[in-house]
C-alpha cells in the first residue's frame, strides 16, 4: 500500500464514561486508508461505524489510540481543526439537516465563504461542486432549498461539502432514502470523484449492492471492533464472515448461496448481478 492518508491505531471510545450509562462504542480499532482508495465500512446497527467516522474530521477526539489524517494528529490538543476539516469532508446520514440556507447556491457557498475565500473563488467553487453532483448551477442556484426532493437535497448537501475541496470524502449512508435512479446516479458521481478527481472516499453503508459496486476494500465492524477487512469478493465470498457478523448479502449473493446449499458448484464470490447471472447460465448449460 502507498503512504496511508488515514491511519487509525488502537482507537477506543466510551460514551458517558464513568456514569451508569457508560457505553463502549469503539475498542482497539486499527485501519489504514491509502490516498485514492474507496473504502466501505459495514456492520450492523450499533457496531460503531458512525462513531469511527466522526473521528476522521475531529468531531470526536480520540480518548485512547491515535488518528492521523494526512499528517495531522487528531488527538493532538493543539490540532488545527479547521485545517483538518478542509482535508476531510463529512456528509452525515440525514444531510437534509445540514441544509439551512434559503437558496441552494447560498447553502453550497456557506463553507467556502466561511473559509474567507474571495467572492469570485467562492462562486467558482460553488459552480464546480454543483456541476460535480449533477445540479445545474444556472438552473438550481436560486431555487429555494425547502422545495427540493430528497435526492436533490442529498446532492446539495454533498455539493456543500465538496465546495470545501477536501482530499478525503466521508459519507454516512450516502444513498439511504433515495429512489433507485437517484441512488444509481449518486453512486456514479461518487465513483467518478474517486476515480477521476482522485478523492479518497470512505463510506458507511448497509446497502450491500452499493458496497459491491463501489468499494475497493471493506472493513467489517462488530461490537465496536474492526473484525475483518478485505475486498468485496473476500467478504461476500465467506459465509463464515457473513454469518459471524450478521452482515447482509447483496441479493445476487443470497441466490448464489441458496444454490450452493443445494449442491450446485457456484462461485459465491461472484457478487455483481451480471456475474451471478453468468454463473447460473453456466450451471444450466453444463
Amino acid at each position, binding site marked *: 500500500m502507498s503512504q496511508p492518508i488515514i491511519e487509525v491505531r488502537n482507537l477506543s471510545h466510551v*460514551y*458517558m464514561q464513568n456514569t451508569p*450509562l457508560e*457505553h463502549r462504542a469503539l475498542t482497539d480499532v486499527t485501519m489504514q486508508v491509502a490516498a485514492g482508495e474507496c473504502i466501505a465500512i459495514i*456492520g*450492523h*446497527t*450499533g*457496531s460503531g461505524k*458512525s462513531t469511527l467516522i466522526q473521528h476522521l474530521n475531529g468531531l470526536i477526539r480520540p480518548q485512547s489510540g491515535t488518528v492521523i489524517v494526512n499528517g495531522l494528529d487528531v488527538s493532538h490538543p493543539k490540532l488545527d481543526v479547521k485545517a483538518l476539516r478542509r482535508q476531510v469532508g463529512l456528509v452525515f*446520514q*440525514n444531510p437534509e439537516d445540514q441544509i439551512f440556507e434559503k437558496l441552494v447556491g447560498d447553502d453550497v457557498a456557506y463553507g467556502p465563504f466561511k473559509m474567507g475565500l474571495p467572492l469570485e473563488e467562492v462562486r467558482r467553487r460553488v459552480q464546480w461542486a454543483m456541476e460535480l453532483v449533477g445540479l445545474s448551477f444556472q438552473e438550481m442556484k436560486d431555487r*429555494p432549498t425547502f*422545495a427540493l*426532493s*430528497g*435526492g*436533490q437535497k442529498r446532492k446539495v448537501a454533498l455539493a456543500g461539502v465538496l465546495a470545501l475541496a477536501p482530499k478525503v470524502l466521508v459519507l454516512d*449512508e450516502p444513498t*439511504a*432514502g*433515495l*429512489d*433507485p*435512479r*437517484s*441512488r*444509481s446516479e449518486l453512486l456514479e458521481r461518487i465513483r467518478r470523484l474517486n476515480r477521476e478527481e482522485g478523492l479518497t472516499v470512505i463510506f458507511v453503508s*448497509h*446497502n*450491500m*449492492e452499493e458496497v459491491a459496486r463501489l468499494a475497493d476494500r471493506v472493513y467489517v465492524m462488530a461490537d465496536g471492533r474492526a473484525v475483518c477487512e478485505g475486498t468485496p469478493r473476500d467478504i461476500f465470498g465467506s459465509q463464515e464472515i457473513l454469518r459471524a457478523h*450478521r*452482515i*447482509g*448479502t*447483496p*441479493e*445476487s449473493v*443470497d*441466490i448464489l448461496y*441458496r*444454490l450452493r446449499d*443445494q449442491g*450446485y458448484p457456484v462461485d459465491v464470490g461472484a457478487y455483481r*448481478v*451480471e456475474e*451471478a*447471472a*453468468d454463473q*447460473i*447460465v453456466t*450451471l*444450466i*448449460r453444463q
Partner: protein
Amino acid sequence: MTNEPLIRVENVSFSYQVNQEQHIPVLHGVSLEVYPGEHLAIIGHNGSGKSTISKHLNGILTPREGDVWVNGINTRDKKRMHEIRSQVGMVFQHPDNQIVATIVEEDVAFGLENIGVPPEEMKQRVDFALEAVGMSAFRHRPPHHLSGGQKQRIAIAGVLAMKPRCLVMDEATSMLDSCGRQEILAVVRRLHREGMTIVNVTHHMSEAAAADRVIVMEGGRIALEGTPRDVFAQHERLRELHLDVPDASRIAAWVHREVPAFSPALIHNEEVVAEVNRLTIKRAEASGS
C-alpha cells in the same frame, strides 16, 4: 377481497403552499383503496408524491380537493382524529423525529399514556411491542445513544403499542442495516399474518415484491398498479419511472436472454433457485441419468 375498504382515497389533490401566490402541486386526483388485511406497497421516485399520499392515510395531511375516509370517518373531521389515528398508525423514515422520551420504554408507552391505558395493560403492550422489534434488552436505555436502526425499531414499537388496524410505513426501513431491515420485515410479515393491514411506502423493490399489490406513483398520479409480478414484468416502464426491479428479476431477465427456457417473470430469490432446479433436473432426465 370483496369486503369494504378500510381506507378510501377519493380523487385527492394536494399542493404545498410556498407563499400566498405560489403552490407546488403534488397530488392530482388520486383515488385508491386499502382493504382490511392486505399488504399494499407504494413505490415511486423521490418527489413522485408517494410520501404525500401516505400522509393522507391517517389525516396528517388533508386533501385540498377530494376526500379520504378511514373506516367511514372523513379525515377532515378533526374531532375524530383520535379514532383515525388509533386505527391507522404511521412510522416515518427518520426515527429521530419520532422519539420523544429519555428512556426507551417511556418512549414506547408515550402514546398509551396519552389515551389513558391502565398501567397493567400498558406494561403488556410495551412488552409486546419491544419484543416484536427485538429491542427488549434496551428498554431502560436512553434512546439518543442508540444507533439509527435501533431508534427506528423503537419508533415502530411505539406505533405497535397502539395496536392499530393498519400500519403505514413511510420508507421506514430505508435507514436500517440489512439485518435490521430483515427483522422489521419479519415483524411486518408476522403482523400481516395476524391480520394487520400493511401499507409500505418503499424504495426497496424486493420489499414491494413481497406485497399483495403494488401501486406506482409518478408526478402525483398513479402510473401503474397490479400484483408485484405484473408490475415488475415491466422493466422498461419502471426504468422510465426512475425505478428498478428486484435483483432476482434482473438476474432472471439476464439468464433468459442466454437461456430462453429460463423464465424471465421471477421476482423472488427462491424462485430463481427453483427455476435453476427445474431446468437442471429436466436436463438430467433428458440425458437419462
